[in-house]
């Protein structure tokens, strides 16, 4: 990506802008969602960040756009946040082919597990939660997350690992 953008000196060309959106909008949305939850409307935050990028397109080189977008979206969310607990929604889908798993006992246990999971996730720090979910749910590699968050690969590895450890201890009450 970096190489491909190198020819353009700013982000004012529509094709460059569209490409940047295609490359980063979804990641940015997931980043805000997993970090701050739904009440801060991640889609609006992403839109605001891209509008800011367009307003300032002359001053921003395409290879710098990613860190610009992530810090704008992060800062505008921080400005409104009131340190509320972040509770992420889950959707329980029981796979159809496992009909023997449908009994009420199993469903109850499943729901109990997920409720504990939800609480455990909200107890994690924002930084750990976002790294963990980007890795486990969105399948992002440590290196990609490091680039998104602007921290080292080692730091990402540590955040994900300790998040996993804490979740496990919390849910299974070890």
């Amino acid at each position, binding site marked *: *990506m970096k*190489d*491909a*953008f*190198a*020819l*353009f000196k700013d982000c004012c060309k*529509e*094709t460059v*802008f*569209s*490409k940047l*959106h*295609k490359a980063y*909008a*979804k990641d940015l*949305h*997931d980043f805000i*969602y*997993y970090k701050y939850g*739904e009440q801060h409307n*991640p*889609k609006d935050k*992403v*839109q605001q960040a*891209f*509008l800011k990028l*367009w307003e300032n397109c002359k001053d921003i080189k395409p290879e710098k756009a990613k860190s610009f977008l992530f810090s704008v979206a992060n800062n505008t969310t921080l400005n409104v946040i009131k340190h509320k607990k972040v509770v*992420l*929604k*889950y*959707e*329980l*889908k029981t796979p159809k082919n496992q009909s023997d798993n449908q009994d009420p006992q199993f469903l109850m246990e499943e729901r109990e*597990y*997920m409720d504990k*999971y*939800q609480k455990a*996730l909200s107890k994690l720090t924002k930084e750990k939660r976002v790294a*963990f*979910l980007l*890795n*486990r*749910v*969105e399948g992002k*590699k*440590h290196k990609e997350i490091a680039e998104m968050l602007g921290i080292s690969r080692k730091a990402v*590895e540590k955040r*994900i*690992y300790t998040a*996993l450890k804490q*979740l*496990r201890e919390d*849910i*299974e009450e070890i």
Partner: protein
Amino acid sequence: MKEELIKKWLNNELTPEELEAFKKLDEYASLVKLSEKAKYFKSPGFDQEQHLEDIKSKTLSKPKASKYQYLKYGGAIAAVFLVGFILFKSISSANKITSIETLTAKTETINLPDQSKVNLNAKSQLSYDAEGWMNNKQLELDGEAYFDVEKGSKFTVNTPYAVVEVLGTKFNVKSRDYGFEVACYEGSVGVQRGKKSYTLQANNKLILKDEGMVLKQVHTDVPDWKTAKSVLKSQTLEKVLKEFQNYYDVEFYTSTVDIQRRYTGSFPHNDIEIALKSITLPLGLTYKIDDKNIFLSKK
């Protein structure tokens, strides 16, 4: 050791042997359950294209074409619509851009409004202004395509690396995030990168190397991908595997091999076993296929 295994598992870096060891851990079942159930917390859907349209409607809208133009170029538009029905196609409401995108291992043939033909290679995207083609003969290419241009027709291909100008000719443009090259098979093309311009004659190609363009000869009549193979000369294994993923929908695991090693050779696009052997044998490597995951290791 245990912590290392778990960390590697979290980054999909386990070798088949390590995976066995990981499965023997006491916490294996509980970790896998945690990981599986995490997916229930997936973020709500995000429609990237719709989101971009919303932003564009706020910022980038352009004046629309007059009714007169609609009549004049109706034929051209109809032709483009005919082509579009089998393809992934989106026309943005702001300025009627036709965009065709191919997935892994798929290719497409597109007829431009002036009867020029474009063969779009796998994992590539081509867009152009179908409605205003006569005034704006510009194509945007991301990926690789072969152009067979009608005599006397002139247009421009824009890529992130360079601008390619053509006048009745046959040529191939490859613009991937891991490399750029233009090959000319008939006539001539002009290539402009930054402030530098080049004129490329038939049977020659330009390759981007360390920020400069290098001129090489072409020995075939059509690009290699048109005969369903990739030919690579002294490329890093990293680039070879990226090229491979244009034609096969797989993930590579390379933690135990040196991906900066150079490879010279070719592989076919229609037989994954032969393709993998063509790459691994000369480098003294072996591979293991597990569904869509391919583990590379030293022999």
